[in-house]
């Protein structure tokens, strides 16, 4: 009989971080400084302890009803949120720098969007070539000349960060349309408090819970009516949307109304009203989670039943604030992405605090030649897709896939960019029936707000590619998630989170 192991210490000593930056383990048997207490705690757990913690997390997720919707041929299925109980840890020092960089980036992007819909100085000054705008899928001429409050178009941004081999964060993409995931970031923390409560007593982990109140403040600051309590609504496409859980969650946590398109109506006075049991009530701010093109059948897709006829009319008249503003998506074009360092320099006269990943523009003849010659080494992305769809990951691709992408690029070079395959950082995750810690790749999506003030979440949503060696972290494609801890290693640390 094999003796039952009392701790999982051996499994941890065998952990090989490999040729990547590992978030917790610097070399076999050694944890990074902010992770040391967690590491010795994890090592002290027996395999049975780990299994029961893991199970506790799973039942918490099901009982808390944390789900996302997957579209399949058999209809929409609610899946429980996939979660790994080992957190990813970032030092406060590094996070403070990142926090400033995120705000800087969003500020510059908002100035850029505002410029595009007004004077287009950045193009006239030759910083960004005209073709970028001319052929942009998400530029909305309908929005030209409109001036949203504070000149801000993208109020809520989900910025995808990755950590490369050098341990530095890089921006992978900016999501300025309807980024999702923040509710999972908040719920991950509540799960962790249930599952590993004793760790929270030992380590000072920065709280994340103020996001919803900051979001609410950001939204109310946009109200066109300067009244004490403006009416704020979250506009959802409805329960069949994969992020419906989040829409309901945010409305609840903000005390806002959760509305669907059919609950709203725009009257002849160009104001937006919601249909209540006592009649019509005016709405001041709409946090819309419906894509631009479906938001108003008067202006965009005529057959959209999700939106509200006249919404753009009301917005243009300055009678309602829309967050994010329609047209903000012009800046999350991946070709624009390549120019963000210049955008920051142009508007803010600053150097970017967080770097971009090196990017090749297929529109440029020379760069395209390089991309086509190196398809097996590069990651090719369409300029305007989100959710990790339509990509070619060179090193994992077949000859046939590369040929297809070569044709796609030649047919529409403006629509493709390429980047070197990154050595995405890893963190241990409990894998398999025996819960052996193994390295898995991950990224990080912090959420950045801008209204009257700027704000970035403390950490963000860490997404994990649960398949060995995989770089795809999207939950719709088998990704999982982890709680993200910002840990201050400089101060005395025996303080509990105190929430």
């Amino acid at each position, binding site marked *: 009989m094999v003796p039952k192991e009392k701790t999982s210490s051996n499994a941890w000593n065998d952990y090989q971080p490999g040729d990547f930056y590992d978030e917790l383990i610097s070399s076999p048997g050694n944890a990074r400084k902010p992770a040391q207490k967690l590491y010795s705690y994890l090592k002290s757990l027996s395999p049975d302890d780990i299994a029961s913690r893991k199970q506790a997390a799973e039942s918490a997720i099901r009982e808390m*009803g944390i789900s996302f919707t997957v579209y399949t041929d058999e209809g929409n299925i609610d899946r429980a949120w996939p979660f790994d109980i080992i957190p990813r840890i970032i030092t406060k020092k590094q996070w403070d720098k990142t926090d400033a960089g995120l705000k800087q980036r969003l500020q510059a992007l908002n100035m850029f969007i505002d410029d595009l819909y007004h004077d287009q100085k950045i193009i006239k000054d030759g910083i960004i070539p005209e073709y970028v705008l001319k052929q942009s899928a998400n530029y909305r001429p309908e929005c030209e000349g409109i001036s949203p409050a504070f000149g801000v178009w993208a109020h809520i941004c989900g910025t995808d960060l990755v950590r490369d081999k050098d341990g530095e964060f890089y921006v992978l993409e900016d999501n300025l349309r309807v980024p999702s995931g923040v509710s999972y970031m908040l719920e991950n923390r509540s799960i962790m408090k249930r599952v590993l409560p004793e760790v929270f007593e030992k380590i000072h982990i920065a709280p994340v819970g103020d996001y919803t109140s900051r979001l609410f403040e950001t939204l109310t600051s946009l109200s066109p009516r300067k009244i004490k309590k403006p009416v704020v609504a979250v506009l959802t496409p409805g*329960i069949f949307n994969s992020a419906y859980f989040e829409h309901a969650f945010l409305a609840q946590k903000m005390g806002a109304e*959760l509305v669907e398109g059919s609950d709203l109506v725009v009257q002849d006075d160009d104001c937006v009203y919601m249909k209540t049991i006592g009649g019509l009530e005016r709405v001041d701010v709409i946090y819309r989670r419906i894509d631009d093109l479906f938001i108003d059948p008067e202006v965009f897709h005529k057959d959209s039943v999700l939106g509200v006829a006249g919404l753009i009319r009301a917005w243009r008249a300055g009678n309602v604030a829309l967050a994010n503003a329609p047209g903000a998506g012009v800046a999350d074009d991946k070709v624009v992405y390549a120019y963000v360092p210049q955008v920051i320099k142009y508007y803010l006269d600053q150097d970017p605090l967080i770097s971009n990943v090196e990017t090749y523009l297929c529109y440029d003849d020379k760069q395209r030649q390089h991309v086509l010659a190196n398809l097996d080494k590069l990651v090719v992305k369409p300029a305007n897709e989100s959710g990790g769809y339509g990509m070619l990951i060179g090193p994992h691709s077949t000859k046939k896939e590369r040929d297809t992408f070569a044709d796609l690029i030649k047919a529409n070079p403006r629509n493709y960019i390429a980047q070197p395959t990154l050595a995405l950082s890893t963190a241990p995750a409990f894998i398999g029936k025996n819960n052996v810690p193994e390295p898995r790749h991950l990224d990080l999506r912090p959420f950045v707000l801008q209204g009257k003030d700027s704000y970035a979440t403390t950490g963000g949503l860490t997404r994990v590619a649960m398949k060995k060696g995989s770089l795809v972290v999207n939950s719709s494609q088998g990704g999982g998630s982890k709680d993200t801890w910002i840990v201050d290693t400089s101060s005395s640390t025996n303080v509990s989170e105190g929430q």
Partner: protein
Amino acid sequence: MLSRVAERVYWAARYLERASSTARLVSSYENLLYDLPVDYKMSWYNLIVINDLEEAFNERYSNRTERNVIKFLLADEENFSSLVNSLKAVKENVRTTRDVVPEEAWELICELSLFAKENLEQGLKRRSRHEFLDEIMKGCLQITGLLGASMPRDAAWEFLQLGLNIERADMTTRYLEAGLTAILALEEDQKMVNAQQIIWGSVLRSLGATQYYLRTTRTPVKGHEVLPYLLQDPHFPKSIAHCLRAIVSACEKLPQSEQAVTKLKAVERKLATEVDYENPGEVVLEHLNQLQIQLTGSHFVISEAWFPAEV
């Protein structure tokens, strides 16, 4: 409050009440069957009749066996009123009204539907059924308890009351109708007091009314006492009179309610009409039938006053 949200809160309450009464009905019916004379042809199929589900049942099953009836009432995905579907409907309606119901309600309903799904097989087996149904009833009570203890008495609360009370009133008339129908179906030689007592006793039990019936009427279980108690007692929460009063007073607290209140008060007046309950027969049955039609009508009165117009 949004009209759509009002409607969903209302339906969440109706389905919650439906889930708990289905559980109680199945659980109390078992008791009844064991007590009745062996030659009395009362079967599980009556539960299908009580709930007006004959057509749906017969489309699915050809044998009216205990297992089929129970399966249909508790587990069938095609039966929109089955226990699992009712819980699913509560969950869907709570999911879309999370901004007005207490946040713990969402967790409780997730837990309860999960429990029902994972233990359904226990509910189908006779030996473990009682325990399963007991858990379901407790789960429903826990949710109603939470709502009662934590919701502010604003419009959302009133719509919750409307849903609960319409569903309750509907159930009570159904049970009364079923009881009376069963009595009228008794053969002459079975019309012994005992069989009548068993049937009315079961009606009371399936509404959880026995204890308070006895205390209030101070009479043994007899039809001519049970009928007026469950119809007109002003205090018992599942009596029609109490439900109607709750419905009217909830409506009165809502905006723009004049028309609805007028219409619902007419139903109250109908209920108050003198009926002779001594030796109840076809006349009483017809009275119950009329009441039920009017109660079904109150749903439309409410819907017209506050819910979004059908597109």
